[in-house]
């Protein structure tokens, strides 16, 4: 039995004071257990980073410590699922979505086992930990795997709601989440439907389609632009696969221009998924894909990186203004 820091310990409180979002994952899983779902949680030596220590403390018989062996964790979770359990296994997105890509394909998706994969600290949210800990390719790898759902919640409440919704979802799911410091967008208990985008205002000039952490600054940037007389809407595309094609087409029909924003390489991610819909349907609307431009991110504290890559509200506002004015995008 692993020694656990209790949820009341000073270490846990210290961590949680920095990352208030840590509770959302465990709390949602605790609710699923209370509702009678056969949840088993597991992590690979990162229970204090993803907050699952709270779940482990409450249900030690439902928690599996895998140690630093992510591939074993994913495959074992698939085996576990065949015995009627619903495993939620979590580690850094860089390891889950890249190191474990083949285990996810072969053992989870191909075997059609209802494993819930939680890739946390995704994108460049691990800042100066560097490229090994950045995940700017995981949307691309995960959405190319057949029979795998991909969800990228934009805040803690939406994460909790998506976890709750996953209990009734037949396919395995890859959740791409931040590090628990995401600012709030939604109220606690907000409704979430897998595969349905959430629209924040309609823009005649521009619709921003974003997922994950950039949704909050995108809403803020749109607010500033609209206050200056522009017409900009935002779509929170929390489910990347299956993509809400109707929402994309509505935006394409309404707006002069579309812009996707993701904490991910602009190749293969949300922007590519949106571009595929536009191309499939013959939409001529201009699309600008904003994100990490096919490079390895610099290292810096995350907020510095978001400013540098123009993924914070002022940066998004600058990029959008340039697009709207027909000026070169300042990247």
């Amino acid at each position, binding site marked *: 039995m692993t020694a656990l820091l209790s949820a009341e310990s000073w270490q846990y409180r210290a961590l949680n004071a920095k990352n208030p979002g840590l509770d959302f994952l465990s709390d949602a899983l605790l609710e699923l257990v209370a509702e009678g779902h056969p949840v088993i949680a597991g992590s690979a030596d990162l229970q204090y980073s993803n907050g699952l220590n709270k779940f482990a403390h409450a249900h030690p018989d439902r928690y599996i410590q895998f140690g630093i062996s992510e591939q*074993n964790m994913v*495959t074992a979770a698939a*085996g*576990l*699922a*065949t015995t*009627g359990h619903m495993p939620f296994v979590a580690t850094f997105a860089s390891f889950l979505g890249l190191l474990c890509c083949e*285990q996810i394909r*072969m053992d989870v998706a*191909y075997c059609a086992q209802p494993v819930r994969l939680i890739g946390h600290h995704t994108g460049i949210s691990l800042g100066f930990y560097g490229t090994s800990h950045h995940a700017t390719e995981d949307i691309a790898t995960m959405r190319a795997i057949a029979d795998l759902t991909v969800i990228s919640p934009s805040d803690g409440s939406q994460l909790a709601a998506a976890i709750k919704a996953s209990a009734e979802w037949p396919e395995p799911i890859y959740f791409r989440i931040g590090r628990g410091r995401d600012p709030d967008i939604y109220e606690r208990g907000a409704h979430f439907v897998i595969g349905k985008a959430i629209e924040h205002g309609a823009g005649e000039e521009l619709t921003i389609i974003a997922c994950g952490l950039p949704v909050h600054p995108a809403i803020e940037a749109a607010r500033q632009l609209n206050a200056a007389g522009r017409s900009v809407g935002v779509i929170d595309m929390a489910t990347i696969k299956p993509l809400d094609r109707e929402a994309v087409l509505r935006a394409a029909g309404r707006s002069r221009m579309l812009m996707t924003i993701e904490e991910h390489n602009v190749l293969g991610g949300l922007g590519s998924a949106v571009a595929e819909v536009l191309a499939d349907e013959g939409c001529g609307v201009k699309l600008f894909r904003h994100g990490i431009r096919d490079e390895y991110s610099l290292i810096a504290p995350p907020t510095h990186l978001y400013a540098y890559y123009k993924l914070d509200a002022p940066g998004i506002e600058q990029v959008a203004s340039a697009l709207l004015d027909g000026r070169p995008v300042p990247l």
Partner: protein
Amino acid sequence: MATTETSAASPRAQANDFSISPSELAALREKARFVRLETIRLIEIAKTGHYSSAFSAAEIFAALYYDVMSLRAGEPKWPDRDRFLMGKGHAAVGLFPILADLGFLAKEVLDGYTRLGNPLGDHPDMRKVPGIDFSSGSIGHALSAGAGIAWGGRASGRGFTTFVMLGDGEMQEGQVWEAALFATQHKLSRLVAIVDRNGYQLDGKVDDVIGIEPLTDKWRAFGWEVHDVDGHDLAALTELLRRLKADGARQTPVCVVARTIKGKGVSYMEAEPGWHLGYLAPEDAELAIAEIMAREI
């Protein structure tokens, strides 16, 4: 037939009598012979296949499926069934005939082995083939999957045993050893790994490619109970597996290193390990069939 008679609760197991009778042994030998003959027949349909990998495992298949494992052919997802996973999924050509023989799938399905739309390919697919407990094909995953199954079975209060057949070349995959550590840490005592130690992989002798000896010491060092057995000695193999399944006191997972011969049963394959993947011309197939029919293993 695989039955529940050899389960831990059976009178014979309670009496700690795991010995195999002459008639049981004779019947199992016929089943191993059947595996080899069917392997030749099916690969004739595909025009290429893993003869010798299936031949080295024929006795292991026979002991498990016709004696040791508790199964219900009419209920392939029976929650209390014993599980079998193949790390060396490329030997599935030897398992499919057994599944058909036991009634998990119609015998006619075998006749379309590897043909368009048929569920049976070179590797086993749990979504397509009733009786397959987990898909495989990518070497090195199966022990992890088996460990997860064993953990889940214990958490559900079920007493089934999970058998995982591994290739000896598979020992070169790092994930195997991740699973080995995990199974020991979590005391997965209902997990039994069987290493088909036939000594060869695609590029040559395992010990010339990347050596794995001392193999039993490695598993022991990882905290596993280890048994070394002649993988073609059906009596010894069956008695050992019966005993391992019935042992409710064990606190560790078990590894059986089954010493086997690649291509066992056909002397020219035994002499030429290049038969890992191949195709028998009709006259060679006749020779092989004649030897399999005549030879006692």
